[in-house]
Every structure is written in C-alpha cells, then in structure tokens.
C-alpha cells in the first residue's frame, strides 16, 4: 500500500474503547433487541454490568496530506473512532497522538442557537472553542465569504436549509486554520464539491501538516474527496487503502 512519505499527524495505537451502558438490562426485551441490532460488541464486565466494546485494538496512522474516511455501517465504531482521535473520548486502553491543532466538527447542531443569525452563531461557536471575541470578529469576514450565504448570514439559523448549515459549519471549522480537520457524517453527497474546496483551502494555508479525517457511509463522497478509506466492522479494521481499490474489493465480496 502506498503511503505519502510524510510525517504522521494522527496515531491511534492499540486503542480499545469499552463503556458501560446504563438503563439497558441484558435480560430485558429491549436488551436483547439491542444486542441483535447494535454492531459493537455487547457483553458483561466482571461486576455484571452491560458494556459495549466500541473499538477493539485499533491501530491507525494518518499522515500529513491524507484525506481519510472511516467507512462502515451503523454501530461499526466510525463516530467513536473520530471522537477518540479528536480527544473527546479517552480510550480505555491504548494511546492517541495528534500533531498540530485539531478542529473537530462532529455534530453541526451542537452549540448553535436556532433563533440567532449565522453571524451570532459563529460568535457562539467561537466562544465555545475558547476564542476571544476579537479573534472571532477577525474570522467573520472570511467565514461570511467562504460560506456563500449572502443575505442569509444575517438571518436566523432555523431558516437555513441543511446545505446552508453545512456550509456555515465548514466555513467555521476551516477558518480557525486547523492542522487536522475531523468531520462526522453530516456531509451529504451534495456537499462533496464544497468539501473539496474546504480541504483545498486548508492545504493552501502555508504551514504545518494538513489532514482530513471524516466518517461517512456514502461511497460517493469518499470516492470524490478522500485518498484513503478505512473500513470498520464492530470496532475492528477490516479494510484499509485507496477508495477505488477498497470498494472494488468490497463489491467483489458481495
């Protein structure tokens, strides 16, 4: 498998993520239905609590310049892996290294106030990120231009279409000039062109390592945007490689 001859920017080494599930009891009907539906492994720990092993000895190294997609069906551990890479979840075992500043946009709606304008919401998102008012104000013209929202930038966010909301989120996530951009599966195929522009914008900034890590179950997006796809199944890597090759292999297995 060809690898860019550059430095690793994200490394997950032997990452396990096991967490307890509350309010479900193994013996209940709901418990057994869950067990059948959820992709991650449900089990019991030593004290009899219901636990999920969402990630199982995950080893991922992402190099500078790569655009990596995590692919898999619901419950395969895509989002959990993203959260571990972003530093939201601490792994139960194993280690996570990131080099450079990470900008994670996991859920587009979190932290947004639907009644406030796009402009005020950028302020809100920036405050949550720990940016000063001054820093945020300085970013706003760039975000306004890049998001191409026009008049809507000053309209309440609840009037936005999902595509407009996506553009606002992208514009913010890339405006903070991140080294590593992490996006969860809120991207629709219609956003692929915009996502390409966004990651070009990222790599056009001079400086450090740039990498994109996203979760998606859209083959189309991954083929159009990413240089590498990692396929997860029940928290384990089953495929890793260039999207065209990997999806060909997956298709031939069907």
């Amino acid at each position, binding site marked *: 498998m060809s690898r860019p001859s550059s430095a690793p920017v994200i490394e997950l080494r032997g990452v396990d993520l096991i*967490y307890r599930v509350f309010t479900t009891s193994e013996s209940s009907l709901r418990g057994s239905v869950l067990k059948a539906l959820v992709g991650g492994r449900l089990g019991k720990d030593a004290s009899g609590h219901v636990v999920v092993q969402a990630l199982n000895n995950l080893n991922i190294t992402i190099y500078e310049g790569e655009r990596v997609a995590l692919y898999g069906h619901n419950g395969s551990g895509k989002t959990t892996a993203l959260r571990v890479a972003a530093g939201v*979840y*601490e792994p139960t075992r194993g280690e996570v290294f990131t080099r450079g500043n*990470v900008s*994670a946009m996991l859920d587009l*709606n*979190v932290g947004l106030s639907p009644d406030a304008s796009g402009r005020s919401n950028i302020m809100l998102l920036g405050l949550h990120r720990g940016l000063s008012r001054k820093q945020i104000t300085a970013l706003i013209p760039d975000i306004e231009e890049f998001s191409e929202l026009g008049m809507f930038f000053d309209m309440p966010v609840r009037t936005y279409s999902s595509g407009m909301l996506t553009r606002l989120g992208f514009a913010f996530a890339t405006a903070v000039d991140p080294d590593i951009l992490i996006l969860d599966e809120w991207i629709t195929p219609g956003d692929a062109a915009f996502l390409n522009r966004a990651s070009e914008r990222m790599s056009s900034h001079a400086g450090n390592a740039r990498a994109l890590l996203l979760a998606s179950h859209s083959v189309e997006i991954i083929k159009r945007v990413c240089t590498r796809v990692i396929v997860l199944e029940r928290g384990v890597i089953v495929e890793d490689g260039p999207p065209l090759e990997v999806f060909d292999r997956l298709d031939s297995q069907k």
Partner: protein
Amino acid sequence: MAILKLASAAGRDIVSALKMTPNVAMLAWIDMEDRYRRSALGPLWMALTLGVTAGSLGFLYSKILRQPINEYLPFITATLFIWLFFVNVINEATAAFVAGGPMIKNSTQPLFINIMRVIIRNVIVNIHTLPVLLFILIYFHFIGKVNLPLFLFGYVVMIVNLVWISMVIGLLSARYRDVPYVVSYVLQFFMFVSPIFWNPTMLEKGGWFVDWNPIYHWIAVVRDPLLGATSTPASLWFCIATAVIGMGVAFAAFAANRSKVAFWV
C-alpha cells in the same frame, strides 16, 4: 502513577476552563438573554421574585413570630437574597453536565466550564435582585451597618463552597438520574429546618440543629454582615474548612470520573 495522571488531567481541565472565564461569562449572559427572550419584564422578574416573596413573607411572619417589622423585613430580604442564589445554583448544578451533554460528547471543551456556567449565570441573576435588597436596607436604615469587606469575603467563601457542591452534585446527577429529585427534596427540607425565615436568636433552647447545620453557616456568613451583625468566628472557620475539604473531595471525584462523563450524559 495512574492517580497522578488522572489528577493532572483534571487539573489541566480546570485551568483551561478558568482561562476561558470571559467566554464562559459571555455564554452565561447569552443563557440569560435566551431565558428572557420575548418576555416584557425580562430580568426584572428576578428582582420581582425577591421583592414580592420578601415583602409578603416579611409582613406575615413578623406577625406570626411577633417580630418588629423594621427588623424582620431586612432580615428576611437579606436571607432570601442569598438563599435564592444558593438554592438556584444547587438545583441547576444537577443539570450542569447533563445539559452540557451534547457539547461534552462533541467537543474537547473542558468539563469544568459547565460548573462555571451555572455559577456565573446565577451571580448575574443575583446581581439583578440587588436593587431590592439595597432599597430595603436603605429604607430601614440598615445600610450604614453593612460590613462590606466581610460580606464580600463571605460571598466568595460561599461561591467556593458552591463550586465543590456543584461539582459533586453535577457528577452524581449525571451518573444517577434520581439525584436531582433527592437534591430538590433535601433543599426544601433544609429551607424549613434552617434559620431562613426565623433568626436563630429566636430559639431559646435546642439550638444544636442550627449549630450543626452546614447550610445555616454557609448562609449566615454572607447574611450577617449585611445586617450589621458579625458571624461567630466558628461559623467563618466552619465555612473555610468545608471549602477546603470539599474542594479536595470534589477534585478527587472529578479526577476519577472526568473521562466517564461523556458516556453518562
């Protein structure tokens, strides 16, 4: 070694949250704006709550307890000024992490921010009720007796106590969803057995449940300086001691559970 790692991670969380204080203050202010959006009186409601409660209770209880109104009304106003703040912080602390859940699950924001947000939001509310307190203190000629340095000292000690209480209650409430109900019941219980509506000097005998009531001391060290009385050194030392010990306990609980909160909320 593992303990050290947990403690340093918790310490980093708190330090980076404290560095974000201006941001948290602005977010708390936005919480207030959201809460009173489209209400005509807006934040005046907070002052009205204190004014109406203190006024009506003051007149009624001064009769029931046979207290002179010009002493009882300032007493009840000063008490409620602090008590409402105290109760609101603790009640909202039960939701501190749960309400911040989406943010906790989706960002790397320090967790301690959720505690700061509850405290700062309620300090803002408390300041809005200050005019009512000042009016009563001026009207009944208590204003000259106010010991401002001691009041501010007591207020800060109360906030430190509230920070650790909020951390413990916030964590417990995120893990065990029955805790908020227990907390609101316990607070109501303490409202009746603590010297909130009555002054401990009205008690002739059997003051042990005042002396051993932590809530009494936490409230008294802030209230007494407003009324020209001085809290006993015992009360002050008790509050300082609970602040120090409580902070230690809360920090340990925070360090041990910090990384689990994202899975609880």
